[in-house]
Structure formats: C-alpha cells, structure tokens
C-alpha cells in the first residue's frame, strides 16, 4: 500500500510536469515564435521586478492579450471537460460516457443558442448564455440517463443509441432555431465553431469560478461514485443514498459541461480519453482519479490547442477537430474492447 501511494504521487508529479511543459510550449509556439527568455523578461517587467525589456510591442500584445488567456482558457476548459467526463463515466458505470458522446454538450449548445437568438445573452449579469447552457446540459443528461437505463444497468449499446438519438434531435432543433435567427446567425456560427481563440480574459472570468466549484463538488461525490460502480442495489445496501448521488452527479457534470460549452463550444473526447487513460494508470478509485484528471485534462487540451495552431500555420484547425482526430480512434478501440469483454463474458 505504501508503494501504491508513492507511485500515485509520482504519477501526479509527472502529470504536473507535463502540464508545465505544455504551457511553456504553448506560450512559445504559434504564428510568431516567442522565445522563453522574452517571456520571462516580460513577466518580470509586469511583476515590477525589472525594466521594460527590449522586445517589440507586438510580442507583448500577442503574449498577454492572445496567447495567455487562450492557454489559461484551454486549461480551465480541459479541466471542466475531463472532470465532467469522469463524473458521467462514474454515474453511467461505463467508460464510454463523455459529455459530447452522450449529447450533454449538444444540449448545452442548444440552450446557449436559444438564448442568443432570443437576445437574452446579457441576462443574469452577462451569464445568460452560461445559465442556458447549464439548463440545456442538465435536461439532456437526465433525459439520456433515463433512456439509457434498462433495469438496473446502463448498457453500452443503449447508452450510445440514446446519445445519438438525443444529439440528432437536438441538432435538428438547433438548425430550426438558426433558420429563424436572422441577423444573429453570424454570432451563432462564430460561437458554434468557437474553439478557444479570440475569447480573451472575459470568458475566463466566467468559467474559472464555475469549474472550481464543480471540481470541489465532485470531490464530495467521489467515494459514493466508487460504491455506485457496484450497482445501484448494492450501493444502497452499503448505505449510499443512490437517488441523491445520481442527482448530484448529473447536476455537477452538467454544470461543468454547460459552463465550458458556453465559452468554448462543443469539444469532444477530452472527457472520454482523460479519465479512461488515467484509470489504467492509477486505478478506478474516483478519489485518486479526480486530482489526476484535473491536471491531465488541462495538459491534454493545451497540447491539442498547440497542434491546432501549428499544423497548418498560419491558418488554424478548429480545436474540436484535433481532439476528435486524436480521440475518435481511441473511442473505436475502447468500443472494440468493450465488445470483446462482453463476448468473453457470454
């Protein structure tokens, strides 16, 4: 057990290093190369430790107005998506659950679009889109859970089918809403393609506290989700209030997914891959997984964003395309493995 703990700590340290490296790389590379020395000196200047370094004004703008908020946003979004994925996988007792795959992200997007079209984006002190995304995500999560559950278990096939059906329905509604949107269509498209660019510090201010709250709430659900993986009936026998745990997991997962989607649009597979890979490394205990996922999610999305920026530089790939290119083959591999398991059990 001692050994296990030391190993776990090593994994966390390795992930943290990975995150730091990814941040450094992300700061440096892009359409313009900013050498780490310039970055360090600019930071020292901003903190009042040194005079203004001899770097061009444009470098300063790129660093502080474009790259830094974008990197931090990628980090927070990655953290939110990975944590939401972990919660949904625990809740559905299924490693294939992910906010995008089960349609929760689409639900959030629909909520956001409806609010934009109705002109309510400024409601709740500018949180109108976020609130609507949360509402859409919650409704979809409850709906898919209801549909996917057959008796005591959530079957892979029904989960995926329910997710597909719900996502298809939502996208149909979305198209219809957009057809009536008139002048807003540009702002919707801009938002839908979204990604992390050109969002600035504003959206970071909205999403960071929500993700922090969601993460803390997830901590309190971690043990109950462990027990829930034994099945609802067994969890109840062991003293877990099953209905309450399910409600809270859905609410927290939807809060995270909704907040994140409202600032970045739909980005898939982060919530699928991050928890799954880490489960192979640190085991299935949600209490150990949660910190690991909260570090690895940002590292993954920041790295993916670097790829998105450099692959066809100076043009950019949408970040969702990069995560999908990395994630889809992984998803298919998981699906095959699940099927193999099912056959060997039969």
């Amino acid at each position, binding site marked *: 057990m001692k050994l296990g703990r030391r190993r776990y700590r090593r994994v966390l340290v390795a992930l943290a290093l990975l995150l730091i490296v990814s941040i450094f790389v992300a700061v440096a590379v892009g359409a313009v190369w900013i050498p780490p020395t310039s970055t360090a000196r600019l930071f020292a200047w901003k903190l009042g430790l040194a005079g203004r370094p001899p770097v061009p004004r444009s470098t300063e703008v790129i660093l502080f107005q474009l790259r830094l908020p974008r990197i931090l946003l990628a980090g927070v979004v990655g953290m939110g998506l990975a944590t939401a994925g972990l919660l949904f996988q625990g809740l559905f007792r299924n490693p294939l659950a992910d906010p995008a795959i089960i349609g929760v992200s689409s639900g959030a997007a629909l909520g956001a679009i409806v609010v934009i079209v109705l002109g309510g984006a400024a409601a709740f002190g500018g949180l109108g889109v976020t609130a609507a995304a949360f509402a859409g995500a919650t409704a979809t999560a409850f709906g898919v859970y209801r549909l996917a559950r057959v008796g005591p278990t959530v079957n892979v096939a029904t989960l995926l089918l329910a997710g597909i059906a719900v996502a298809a329905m939502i996208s149909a509604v979305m198209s219809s809403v957009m057809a009536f949107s008139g002048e807003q269509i540009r702002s919707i498209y801009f938002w839908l393609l979204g990604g992390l660019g050109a969002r600035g510090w504003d959206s970071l201010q909205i999403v960071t506290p929500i993700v922090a709250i969601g993460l803390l709430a997830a*901590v309190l659900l971690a043990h109950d989700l462990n027990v829930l993986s034994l099945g609802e009936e067994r969890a109840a026998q062991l*003293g877990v209030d099953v209905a309450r745990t399910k409600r809270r997991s859905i609410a927290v997962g939807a809060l995270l997914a909704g907040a994140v989607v409202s600032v970045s649009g739909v980005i898939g597979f982060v919530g699928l891959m991050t928890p799954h890979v880490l489960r192979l490394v640190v085991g299935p205990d949600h209490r150990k997984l949660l910190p690991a996922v909260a570090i690895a999610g940002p590292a993954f999305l920041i790295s993916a964003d670097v790829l998105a920026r450099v692959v066809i530089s100076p043009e950019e790939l949408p970040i969702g395309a990069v995560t999908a290119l990395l994630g889809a083959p992984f998803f298919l591999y998981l699906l095959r493995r699940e099927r193999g398991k099912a056959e060997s059990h039969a």
Partner: protein
Amino acid sequence: MPEARLILDDITAGYGLRPPAVLGVSLQVSAGEVVGLVGPNGSGKSSLLKVASRALRPRSGSVRLQGFDPYSIGAKDAAHLVAVVPQDVVPAFSFTSLEMVMMGRTPYMNGWGGGDPQGWERTRSAMAAVEVQHLADRPVDELSGGERQRVVLAQALAQDAPVLLLDEPTTHLDIRHVVELLSLVRGLAESEGKAVLAVMHDLTLAAALCDRMVVLHRGQVLADGRPEDVLTSSLLKTVYGVEAEIERSRATGKPALVLGLATAAPMPLGKRAHVIGGAGRGSVLMRRLAELGYEVTAGVLHGSDTDEEVASRMNLLRVSVPPFSGIDDAAARECAALLAAADVVFICDAPIGPANIRNLELAIQAGRGGTRLIAIEESPIDERDFTGGRASELWNELRTNATVVSSYEEALLGAG
C-alpha cells in the same frame, strides 16, 4: 427474552401492479440465531429479503431492525443496522479486493471517504475472517466466482451490522468453501451475536446450518421451526412437488435429503384459476382445478369456512378475513390483485350475505377489466340472496359479463 433483532410483522409486498409476492408473512430473528429461508423459485424468498434490507417497501406490515423502521431512516443509518451478502457483485470498474472490502465501511465515512478511524482495522479483520488477505491487491473482476463471493462477504462483515442477510451465499462456491463460509457465519452468530437470515436453496445445507428454518410457499409461511421438525417428506411433496426421503445424520441428528429421481410430480400448465367460494361451495372445484394443473388462488374467504380450511390445507395463495366479518379495503385490494392475475375466475353459487357481498363487486370489476368469468348456478340466486335483493341485482349484472353454467362439471369443461 430480549426483543428480536429483526422483526417482520404481517408483511405483504410485491412489485408494481403484479399480485403480491409476499402475503402476510411474519418472522423474527434473535441475536445469535441463524434462520434459513427456503422455498421453491418464486415463493417470495428474495422479495422478503429485499423488504428486510430496505430495498422493497412493503405494501402493508412493519419491519423492525433493532427496533428501528428502516424505511423511516436514511440509507446510511440503515446500513449501520443491516448488511446484505448478495449472490454476486461485479463492479463496473476493476477495483481491488481491498478497495472492495473497504467500501463496506461506507456507512461510517464522510463524503470524501474519510472520517472512519477504525476503517483499516475493521477492513483487515473482516478480510482475515474470510481468509482473503492474499487477494487484497487483485482486481475483483479477475477473481473466480468463489473468491469474489468471499470478498463480498468480507465487505458485508466490514459493515459491522448486527443483522446479516444472505441471499443464496453459496451459489458460486465449491463444497470446501461452502462449509467454511457456513461455519464462519455460524461462528459470527455465536461469538458476535449477529442475527442471520439466509435464503438457501440447498435444504440439507440449510438444515445443517440453521437453528430454525422458515418455509415459504407462494408468498406465505408454510412452516417455521427446528430443521428436524420442518423438513419432512410430505412438506417436500407439497412445496416442491418431489418425492424424497429424510434421513438423520448419526453424528448431528440433523435431517438430510435423499432424492428419489424421476418421481417429480407433473408440472402445472402455468395457468392461474381463481375461485370465489364460500360455505364450502368452492372446495371440490379448487381440488379438481389443482389436479388439472392449474395454479389455484382463492378468496376473499372467511375464517373457519370449509373453503378456507381446504384452501389452507392445499396451501393456496389466498385472501382471508375473520369469520362473519365484512371484507375490508385491504382484503379487497389484495383479492383484486389475485383476480387480475388469474386467467379464469370461477364464481360459486354460495349464499350471499352482507359479509361476502363485496366478492360479487370484485368479480364484476374484474370482468370489466377483461378477466374471464365463469358463474356457476346450480342453485338460483333468489334462493341464496340474504341481502334483501342487492345480491340478486349484482348477480344479474355479473351474468352479463360471464359465461353462465348450471353445474360444476360444466364449469370445469368451460375452463378449457
């Protein structure tokens, strides 16, 4: 004598709109006592265990664990009082055995899974008691069925609850582990004063393990007593429909089963017939229907009526009320459920008075619900109407929805 740790009092329970799986069952388990719950498939054993473990709220009757009603306290508090060993648990993610057993400490933990200073100690001793320490770091989904069963038992023991419910705990075990597990359970009852209620399939094992055996048949308690008194050839024939001899072990005096093969009684057709009798008018019909292979239900019957005595002797699933009393709402509801589940309902030509007139209303309702009714008129209604005309009215209404026959022979033919 101190109050029993587990008290089930007059429990009626079931699922959804289906007829009750458990009908008026009462039983108690005291500290240090091991009680075996036996009966054929579908006799209501598992449902009764669910009622006791806070998983199935009874429709009527009361449950007490150490004096507490588990349905009026939270899941966590209830888990302090009762632990369950289910047939099998396969986690969705591959937890190790150690992690599995620690989950037994959930009722003592806070949200993060901490706050349980004795957790380690209790987990270790539970694993030692079941001898699964060597499996501690193995993922549970890679264990054999027997190993996993023992890990689940350790999980339940780590829960430290005074009442232990076992649901066919030996299903996946080989004979050595069966003996070990059962002696362990016996030992826990004796040393820690646990009250144990175990659903068992193997009657010989149950007789060897238990202080008392409770036999369930069609949702009702058929026998409750020491194994040597309960386990008899005639009981086996009635309950399971098998011919078997009972022998006594020379060493322990406990009864054991010796099966004669190929003597199983014919299987019923799986069709259900309900008889509304009274004044002994239904007795012959109930016997004949049972001989024809029907699963026969009866009611509402009145205590000390011949029909009630026959139904009781035949062990039919039935609804009864005390002699000469009216049919109360609870009995009416139970009977309506039986009527709804029946493929065919026979209404005998019993005398109708204020005490049983509600039976006619129940039959009329069932007929409206689409249940097939056969009304028997060997004697006409006006000769047996003791309600001043109301019974005749109802009978005539009943006739419009029923096949009317003039004799019991014809009724049986009509049943098809």
